[in-house]
């Protein structure tokens, strides 16, 4: 970003120095002096505009993050939480959560949840993007309607899916019974709860993949497809030889961003299953909340420790995403 704009800088200076005379107010001498030292005064102006948001970044991102690290390094009780005199215990909270019987299942569920959601969201999103990339009546309108699941509040989606997956009165089991499948305890059986929250989350994530991949498709020149069609390539070959390879940069961005945002999914799982039954759908996100807010006796320290592991994972993939994006912007 920076270098490109600097090349536009010198001409700006020249235009400033040639007063048009039509200006209503003849510039007073002090303003002239300021004009000569524009870079410095512009720096001041820039940072005056940036000060509120910088303070905001420090107060409302850096400080909560710092508080969270502090929480994870002390032995907090409800009383010391209020009084702020909790003893420093180093990495004890981290040791505690590593030894916790919930650790292994939470890790496994986080990985499975993230991977399965990503694969299906991407595959379905890509198939739909290719489909809607064709020209047919209502194409744009229908594509816009696909945004609905993404725009709905998560509590709305989660409660709707909860009722649809209800064991006794849910529509999903009713539909399954018409094809002779026995009712499934979607939300109350430990072997199905993770699948249920994955299904709901895929539904929510498809629109994002569809929209981003669709915009990626539009940058592939139509002439390539026409040439391939002349060479006798069928649509399957055109997809694998042209669409898929040329969409790779957009795919990488979509998947990486999806990864960062799926890792931290909390609302859907918490509202549908609270991570249960018996931790069968718990991930790091819900476990962290469970520790900090889900019990009568909050365990802020371990909760913050779990949360920080999640931050590290999100930031690692986030930095990979930023790197990939920068590289693409340069090339």
């Amino acid at each position, binding site marked *: 970003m920076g270098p490109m*704009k600097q090349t536009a800088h010198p001409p700006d200076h020249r235009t400033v120095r040639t007063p048009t005379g039509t200006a209503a107010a003849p510039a007073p001498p002090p303003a002239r002096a300021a004009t000569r030292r524009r870079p410095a005064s512009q720096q001041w102006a820039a940072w005056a505009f940036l000060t509120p948001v910088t303070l905001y970044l420090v107060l409302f991102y850096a400080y909560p993050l710092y508080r969270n690290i502090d929480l994870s390094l002390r032995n907090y009780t409800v009383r010391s939480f209020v009084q702020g005199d909790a003893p420093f215990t180093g990495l004890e909270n981290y040791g505690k959560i590593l030894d916790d019987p919930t650790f292994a299942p939470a890790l496994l569920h986080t990985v499975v949840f993230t991977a399965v959601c990503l694969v299906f969201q991407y595959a379905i999103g890509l198939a739909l993007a290719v489909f809607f990339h064709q020209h047919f009546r209502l194409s744009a309108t229908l594509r816009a309607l696909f*945004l609905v699941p*993404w725009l*709905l509040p998560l509590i709305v989606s989660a409660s709707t899916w909860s*009722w649809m997956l209800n064991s006794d009165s849910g529509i999903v089991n009713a539909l399954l019974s018409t094809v002779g499948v026995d009712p499934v305890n979607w939300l109350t059986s430990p072997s199905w709860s993770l699948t249920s929250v994955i299904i709901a989350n895929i539904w929510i994530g498809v629109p994002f993949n569809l929209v981003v991949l669709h915009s990626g498709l539009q940058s592939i020149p139509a002439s390539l497809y026409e040439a391939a069609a002349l060479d006798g390539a069928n649509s399957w070959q055109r997809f694998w030889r042209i669409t898929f390879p040329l969409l790779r940069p957009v795919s990488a961005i979509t998947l990486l961003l999806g990864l960062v945002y799926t890792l931290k999914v909390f609302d859907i799982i918490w509202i549908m299953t609270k991570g249960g039954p018996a931790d069968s759908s718990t991930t790091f996100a819900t476990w962290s909340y469970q520790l900090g807010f889900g019990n009568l006796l909050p365990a*802020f320290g371990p909760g913050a420790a779990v949360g920080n592991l999640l931050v590290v994972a999100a930031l690692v993939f986030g930095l990979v995403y930023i790197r990939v994006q920068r590289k693409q912007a340069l090339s």
Partner: protein
Amino acid sequence: MNRSPSRTWWKTATGLLLTGIMLFPVYWMLNVSFTRDQDMRKSPPDLFPADATLEGYRAVLDQQLPYLGTSLVIGLGTVVLTVALAAPAGYALAKLRPRGGGLLGFLFLVAQMIPGIIMAMGFYAIYLQLGLLQSVPGLIVADSTLAVPFAVLIFTAFMSGIPGELLQAAKTDGAGALRTFRSIVLPMSRNAVVTVSLFAFLWSWSDFVFASTLASGGAHQPITLGIYQYIGNNNQEWNAIMATAVVASLPAAVILVLAQRYVAAGVTAGAVKD
């Protein structure tokens, strides 16, 4: 290219079918919201509310209006705070070439990646000491963190497109940076302001993580908590729960109908959602 009408007709039909499948949960929410209590546990459930009732919506009017009001106030507050913080920042980053601006932009990208619950836990610890728990301003500030990084990104991208000559002309006429920003940059950035406002409102309206950690049990709770407590308290009255869900979805519906192009622009600008 020549396409026979029958071929595109099939595509439209397939598209309608796919959209129907995708939106089935939304239809189901509407259907259940009109279903009578005595039909709720019917097996198999009615695919369509033959004996439609407004009981559910009456319950919304009786019980959920304060929650909706709180969400509206918090949503509007979040919009104002977000635009007030992000628009000047976008202008500075796009047009004033500050030293360290690149780093700041990078920090905002990183800030977006911090999981919501971690932010919530930090806010909880801070608000507990400041006595800001269960307060509307507290929730506005917390919700704005969902939108500010995105807003800075959108404003920076949009304001980069404003021609430099225009700003230069303003300078020549003796306008300072503040004046230029207020009378030229901001009016020209109307579309960016709309996009940012829509998303800031929608995200704050939809927020559940901050609401449940920072506002739970207070006098002013947003609609997401209203629904959540509904599910917990009386899981028999699903028509009332789904009616509340329908009402809570109205802002999303309005935005989709009135401002669809802004939404698509926002998503592809690297838009993000928890």
